[in-house]
């Protein structure tokens, strides 16, 4: 098990490193000139342009820029804008000249928001989604099964953003059944944190829940017809134990696989949700940075998202090996 985790950790780190290289390449080696982008079209003098280039160290060789950027992540570095020296402590992800702050500082407050959002979403789909699916599978062929499955089909055929907007409009503003979305740090007040995120979670999760219910129903129906389920019943175990202990463990495997693939998508969904509920997360930050061409920020967000992604994939991998011992033993 330890070796398995170590191997996975190693491969996770290499993915992060690769992302670092690729993002760097995309933004700084790409044909668009970041300095010109930052400088803007109007009132961009040659002098200001050169200044930006120098500040961003864009006049140096690309390899050196990359080395400096990478070194900054581990050791911190300094930037100089208009004669003022800005200190950027490790882990330094660059310096935003638009807002005159180190990128790390800008991200620091926003990461917990997005992580909270995605974590809640994951819990939601993996509990409610899987539970509804298992319930339908256990009662397959009955009216309950048909009602559950057709309602998930109806829900999932409405585009996600429409559901999201409708919920936020009707259930929080017109008929305030659900608390309004907003972010309070967990450390400050867990109750407020939960209340503020509840609606965003539901909005982000409800659509995926319907899909996960269908995945898990399919997977559970298959598992319930396995020989070892018959064996479990022959032992004298109750239906509940058979379904939720014996069948669910195997039935979860394909669901977890899909979940692993789906994490990137959920980060994308998080951007929408943050926008709709105006949560101060990474998604909102990246949207505003895109409009202002704040390249260091965008790059930082991409890098941090990739770390979140890789971490979650690592968690999924480990979860996978906990569910299925054959994964780590072979």
């Amino acid at each position, binding site marked *: 098990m330890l*070796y*398995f985790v170590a*191997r996975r950790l*190693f491969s996770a780190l290499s993915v992060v490193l690769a992302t670092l290289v690729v993002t760097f390449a995309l933004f700084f080696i790409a044909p668009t000139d970041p300095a010109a982008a930052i400088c803007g079209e109007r009132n961009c003098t040659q002098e200001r342009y050169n200044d930006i280039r120098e500040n961003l160290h864009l006049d140096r060789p690309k390899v050196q820029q990359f080395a400096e950027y990478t070194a900054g992540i581990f050791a911190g570095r300094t930037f100089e804008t208009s004669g003022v020296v800005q200190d950027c402590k490790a882990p330094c992800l660059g310096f935003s000249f638009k807002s005159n702050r180190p990128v790390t500082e800008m991200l620091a407050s926003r990461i917990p928001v997005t992580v909270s959002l995605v974590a809640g979403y994951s819990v939601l789909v993996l509990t409610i989604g899987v539970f509804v699916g298992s319930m339908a599978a256990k009662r397959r062929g009955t009216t309950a099964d048909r009602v559950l499955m057709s309602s998930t089909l109806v829900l999932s055929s409405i585009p996600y953003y429409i559901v999201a907007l409708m919920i936020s409009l009707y259930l929080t503003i017109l008929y305030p059944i659900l608390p309004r979305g907003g972010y309070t740090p967990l450390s400050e007040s867990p109750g407020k944190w939960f209340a503020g995120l509840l609606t965003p979670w539901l909005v982000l999760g409800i659509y995926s829940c319907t899909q996960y219910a269908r995945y898990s129903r399919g997977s559970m129906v298959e598992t319930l017809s396995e020989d070892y389920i018959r064996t479990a019943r022959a032992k004298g175990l109750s239906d509940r134990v058979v379904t939720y202990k014996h069948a669910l463990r195997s039935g979860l495997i394909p669901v977890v696989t899909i979940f692993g693939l789906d994490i990137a998508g959920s980060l994308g969904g998080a951007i929408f949700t943050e926008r709709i509920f105006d949560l101060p997360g990474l998604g909102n930050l990246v949207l505003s940075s895109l409009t202002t061409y704040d390249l260091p920020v965008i790059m930082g967000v991409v890098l941090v998202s990739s770390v979140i992604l890789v971490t979650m994939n690592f968690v999924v991998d480990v979860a996978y090996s906990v569910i299925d011992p054959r994964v780590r033993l*072979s």
Partner: protein
Amino acid sequence: MSDTVRTVDAGTASSPLLSVRDLKMHFPIKEAAGLGRTRKVVQAVDGVSFDLRPGASLGLVGESGCGKSTTGRMITRLLTPTSGQILFKGTDIARMKEKELRPFRRELQIVFQDPYSSLNPRQTVSNIISTPLRVHNLVPRGQELARVQELLERVGLNPEHHNRYPNEFSGGQRQRIGIARALAVEPEVIIADEPVSALDVSIQAQVMNLLEDLRRDLGIAFVFIAHDLGVVRHFCDEVAVMYLGKIVEQGPREQIYSAPQHPYTQALLSAAPDLGTIRGVPPKERIRLVGDVPSPIDPPSGCRFRTRCWKAEDICATQEPPLTPKSKSGPGHRAACHFAEPKVDLTAATA
């Protein structure tokens, strides 16, 4: 089909149709070991040699993992052997490229075990059988259907059912379709890989009889792969017993069944549940092997059977016994054992 009858020329009996020499199949596998991986080799088949005369039938018997099916797949070149020769009428096809291999593919056909998974469920029977006809340009355009119906009749199916799909047939009938597909190209050798083991007893006998008719009427030679000793005894003139990738005993049917030399063959025969036990015949001497077949990844040194053998001595661990004739054996009967001796009382009612 009468025009396809080949007379088995007595003169060719000395020159084999198919010769396999020192055939090996080693599959490399990777295993996680600590932080890295180690490469290991599964010795699925390790030095198998035999001859098949025209119209003859050779049985390859053994338990799972002995390499009998892998051998069959190599002969039909569904697998490329790691080393060794497969001489078909004197030409070595073991390492041939796909293009050169094509004419030989026609001569060497295979019938698989599972009639449910070896037929494409989305093709009609007619399509399944006529595809090889088209691939090898055997029948003029427009006459495929007639040939398909002729073949269906030959294997005992209703020729009018050519437009049906495999799922409309029972297991035994599907196996007949598989046989018709193999027959379509008029092969000289059919490799039958457990052709009846997925079928019910009464159906099994029907398919066995069909195969026997084909062998007699069309002079097709068979390599018959099976784990069922009764089926092999019934169908094969010559039997090779395999254990962990090697042939441990080989010889004419009667010799193998009535005077087996190798302890493993003796154990196999003794273990086979036999109706003879209740037909008023005293129970046979029982040999019960201990444990399971060892892994082919790290086979035992020397004689591979020694870990389960009651006769094993020190020499068995150090020296691999060659497959040679033994002092008390009849002609053509060879065994790979340092302590081979015939045992005659293993099967209850030897006629």
